[in-house]
């Protein structure tokens, strides 16, 4: 029997192959001149060691992310490897483990400078008419505190001390902010253009290298003939931060930097190295998508943060567990460093930089830790966000945080008057407000975003716009997947994995099929189904699934 009659596809495949062979044979003499050159051209000689191979792989990954056109596509691209999210070490703003400052500094590559006052840069800012401002602020403070104490729900027993403190603090912050804006707006016109957010959601994810692998990884590597030699090599870890300042102020332009970029390379700015697994301090691990939310969505014109006010109510509860005064101070530093870094990092992500593509210019933010009475000022300059793999040790740039002492704005209230009002604190606050954002001359603020399309909203194709928006919002929503990550049940671990006692059972579970559900990629799913009534007039089997636009 003829083979062609057995399988039609087969014959067509054979025919096309032979046809292509025939064409090359005919055209070969003509191409001969083009194919050969006078000097031989060899492909580049590559170092084939495992280390170099990995480095090249990382470089391609970062290039791919950099080449993604828009902010949303870059974020999708980062998340492509994991359908169920990355295994992330979680930093929650209000949960600060004991003795964890070195960890916070290590994962953000921050050099901490403890000063009495604001850094030198702020000493050049003049503050005039402090008396008028002081009068206004004192009046507002008295009004606010009096007003809050009259409020019925604060006397409610359901309100914990922490909630009361946070409520009082954020109300005072809001009123001080309003008073200062009103007074200073005449003198500093940039204040008019500022945007303000109340209780914004700040989330950020980044990758840090250089930490020791845990026992399970060591065990896995040790059992593999080839991986044995890399048993103790450091691993990359994903960290996520979740927090919510009480108030943030942002502008269209960045703040001028405090230290020049070249000074940030100074090796004398030491950063502690935290070599242990972060779980030794009691940190938790969750499966989470890498979400970067600076309190606003892509497309907002005010993408540069100026000042954020953080709440300190949680310290009341923390002091009960850890009464160490020095540790409480360090906890404040921990909170300020992580919050400042996470906010700036997520802003950088909205400018087209990612944890794999470093920022090209420094960014600065001002952070105030306050409960309405005690004030602590932090200035944070972000010089690098490249911390993965070897960069933890080899990246010469460091981020810098200046931490001031703790000051009391006032001592107390007696007979409707503020006692011991500290004008120095007010002066510092005014300096933060008067520090005007300015244009960076000759610096492209969004070098890694495409010229035509900077956001998904810039695409002309409406279907693509909708699809990108939907996928991006899902990643940032932190909603669980409809089908949860598979697990090995305890009985399966005993009777199927550890001891093969059920040989007659059908092998249907993932661990029997050699599948790893946690390595499922973001696009490993069927595209959305389009009902027949909504499809164009095509044959029945065509156009069932919607088009997808993975970056």
């Amino acid at each position, binding site marked *: 029997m003829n083979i062609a009659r057995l399988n039609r596809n087969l014959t067509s495949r054979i025919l096309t192959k032979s046809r292509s062979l025939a064409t090359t044979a005919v055209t070969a003499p003509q191409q001969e001149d083009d194919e050969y050159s006078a000097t031989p051209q060899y492909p580049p000689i590559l170092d084939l060691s495992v280390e170099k191979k990995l480095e090249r792989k990382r470089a391609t990954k970062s290039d791919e992310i950099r080449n993604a056109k828009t902010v949303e596509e870059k974020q999708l691209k980062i998340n492509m490897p994991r359908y169920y999210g990355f295994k992330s070490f979680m930093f929650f703003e209000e949960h600060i483990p*004991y*003795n964890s400052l070195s960890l916070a500094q290590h994962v953000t590559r921050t050099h901490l400078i403890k000063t009495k006052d604001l850094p030198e840069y702020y000493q050049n800012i003049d503050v005039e008419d402090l008396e008028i401002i002081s009068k206004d602020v004192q009046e507002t403070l008295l009004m606010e505190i009096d007003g809050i104490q009259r409020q019925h729900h604060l006397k409610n027993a359901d309100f914990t001390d922490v909630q009361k403190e946070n409520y009082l603090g954020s109300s005072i912050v809001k009123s001080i902010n309003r008073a200062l804006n009103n007074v200073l707006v005449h003198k500093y016109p940039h204040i008019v253009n500022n945007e303000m957010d109340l209780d914004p959601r700040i989330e950020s994810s980044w990758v840090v290298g250089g930490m020791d692998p845990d026992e399970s990884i060591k065990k896995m590597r040790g059992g593999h003939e080839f991986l044995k030699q890399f048993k103790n090599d450091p691993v990359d870890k994903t960290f996520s931060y979740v927090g919510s300042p009480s108030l943030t102020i942002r502008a269209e332009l960045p703040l001028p930097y405090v230290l020049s970029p070249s000074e940030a390379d100074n090796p004398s700015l030491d950063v502690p190295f935290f070599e*242990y697994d972060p779980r030794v301090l*009691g940190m938790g691990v969750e499966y989470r998508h890498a979400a970067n939310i600076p309190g606003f969505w892509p497309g907002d014109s005010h993408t540069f943060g100026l000042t954020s006010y953080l709440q300190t109510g949680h310290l009341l509860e923390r002091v009960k567990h850890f009464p160490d005064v020095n540790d409480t101070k360090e906890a404040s530093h921990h909170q300020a460093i992580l919050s400042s870094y996470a906010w700036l990092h997520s802003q950088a992500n909205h400018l087209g930089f990612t944890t794999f593509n470093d920022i090209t210019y420094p960014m600065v933010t001002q952070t105030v830790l306050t409960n309405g009475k005690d004030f602590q000022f932090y200035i944070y300059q972000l010089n690098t966000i490249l911390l993965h793999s070897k960069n933890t040790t080899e990246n010469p740039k460091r981020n810098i945080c200046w931490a001031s002492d703790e000051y009391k704005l006032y001592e107390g209230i007696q007979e409707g008057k503020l006692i011991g009002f500290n004008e120095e604190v007010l002066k510092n606050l005014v300096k933060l407000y008067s520090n005007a954002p300015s244009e960076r001359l000759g610096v492209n603020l969004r070098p890694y975003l495409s010229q035509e399309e900077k956001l998904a909203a810039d695409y002309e194709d409406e279907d693509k716009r909708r699809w990108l928006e939907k996928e991006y919002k899902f990643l940032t929503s932190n909603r669980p997947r409809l089908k949860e990550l598979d697990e090995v049940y305890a009985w399966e671990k005993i*009777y199927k994995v550890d*001891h093969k*006692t059920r040989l007659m059972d059908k092998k249907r579970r993932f661990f029997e099929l050699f599948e790893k559900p946690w390595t499922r990629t973001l696009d490993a799913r069927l595209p959305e189904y389009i009902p027949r009534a909504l499809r164009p007039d095509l044959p029945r089997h065509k156009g069932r699934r919607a088009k997808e636009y993975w970056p």
Partner: protein
Amino acid sequence: MSTRWYPIYQKTGPQLRVFLPNFWMKLIRTTEKQPKNIVQFSCSMQMTQFDIKNYLEKIYNVKTVDIRTRIALGKTRKDPGNGYVIKEDDAKYAYVTLPKGEEFQFPDLYPDENKDKEDYEKSLEQTKQGYKDYLEKNKGRPGMPGWFTI
């Protein structure tokens, strides 16, 4: 007070009343690499974090800052004769954080034993190397007895 079961005392019977505490803590070497101010204990299952704190502070006068516990699943193994699966008991582990600046190093309990072990390993290594050299020397002459050449 112990909750252990003892045989009821009969006249002329042996005195079996040895009261052992239910609460015990055993200092163990950390499995994962830990900061120097964290100490790992294996403790009795009933002990809570408060019990552990009080135990260390009241009996041994050790100040603690933070205590975290976990219950580890006991290992399973097959009965060698009958083939059914046996599970060992679960165990509770406590990770005790000492105040900042304090350090704890797990003591070297059997220094002599370690030395003996090292000597043994050294001699074993030497023997192995000697055999390797012998094989290398006689590579080209398979099957030749060892006494044939010097």
